[in-house]
C-alpha cells in the first residue's frame, strides 16, 4: 500500500515551458487536492477534485490546469511556466466527503524550480 505518490520529485523548467505533475493514490479516495507550499506561507489550495471526471478551483488556480480521468490519478499541468510558480507542490487525498473534518493524506511533494 503506497498511499499517495507523486512524480517527479524534482524538476527544473525554463520560463514558458510546460509540464505535468502526476499524483496517484491507492486508497480508493474520492477527493484529491493539489497544494503549493511557499516559504513563510501555509499550504495554498490550487485545485481539487471531488471524484473522477470532476475538478474545481481552489484559492490560487491561475496558471494551472488539472484533470482527473481516473479515480486514482490527479494531474496538475503548467502550460507556460513562470518563475512565480517555483514552489513545492503537494498532492493529497481524502475519503468520501470534502468536509473540513476529513483527514487528508499527503504525497512526498514535488520541488519545482522555474528559471
Amino acid at each position: 500500500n503506497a498511499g499517495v505518490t507523486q512524480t517527479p520529485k524534482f524538476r527544473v523548467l525554463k520560463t514558458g515551458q510546460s509540464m505535468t505533475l502526476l499524483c496517484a493514490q491507492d486508497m480508493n479516495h474520492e477527493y484529491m487536492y493539489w497544494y503549493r507550499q511557499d516559504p513563510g506561507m501555509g499550504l495554498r489550495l490550487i485545485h481539487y477534485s471531488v471524484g473522477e471526471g470532476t475538478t474545481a478551483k481552489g484559492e490560487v488556480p491561475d496558471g494551472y490546469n488539472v484533470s482527473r480521468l481516473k479515480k486514482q490519478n490527479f494531474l496538475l499541468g503548467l502550460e507556460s511556466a513562470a518563475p512565480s510558480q517555483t514552489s513545492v507542490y503537494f498532492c493529497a487525498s481524502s475519503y468520501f466527503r470534502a468536509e473540513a473534518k476529513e483527514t487528508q493524506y499527503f504525497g512526498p511533494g514535488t520541488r519545482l524550480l522555474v528559471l
Partner: protein
Amino acid sequence: AQSVTQPDIHITVSEGASLELRCNYSYGATPYLFWYVQSPGQGLQLLLKYFSGDTLVQGIKGFEAEFKRSQSSFNLRKPSVHWSDAAEYFCAVGEGNYQLIWGAGTKLIIKP
C-alpha cells in the same frame, strides 16, 4: 476573514525538554482544528485533530493539543522531545465543507 497564525517561525528545544507550539485562529464558529507534521523530505502527516468534546486531544508520537475557545488557540504540546521530532509543524483550521486554512508552519530544531 478566517486566518490561522503560528507566531513562531522557528523554535529550538533541547532533547528531553518540553515543547509547546502555538496556534491561534480567527473564525466565526468553533472550527475543526488540526496539527500536521512534515518531516524533512516527506509529505504532511496528521498528528491530531479536534472537532468537539474534550478540549484536550491526544495524538500520535506522544503529542497532545488543547483547544481554548476563550483564547482562540489550539497549542500543541509534548512533555519530552526526541531528536526525531525535528520537523515542521502546521496548524490547520476548517469548518463545514469549506477547505482548510493553513498556518505558515513552525520549524522545530532539537539541540542534542
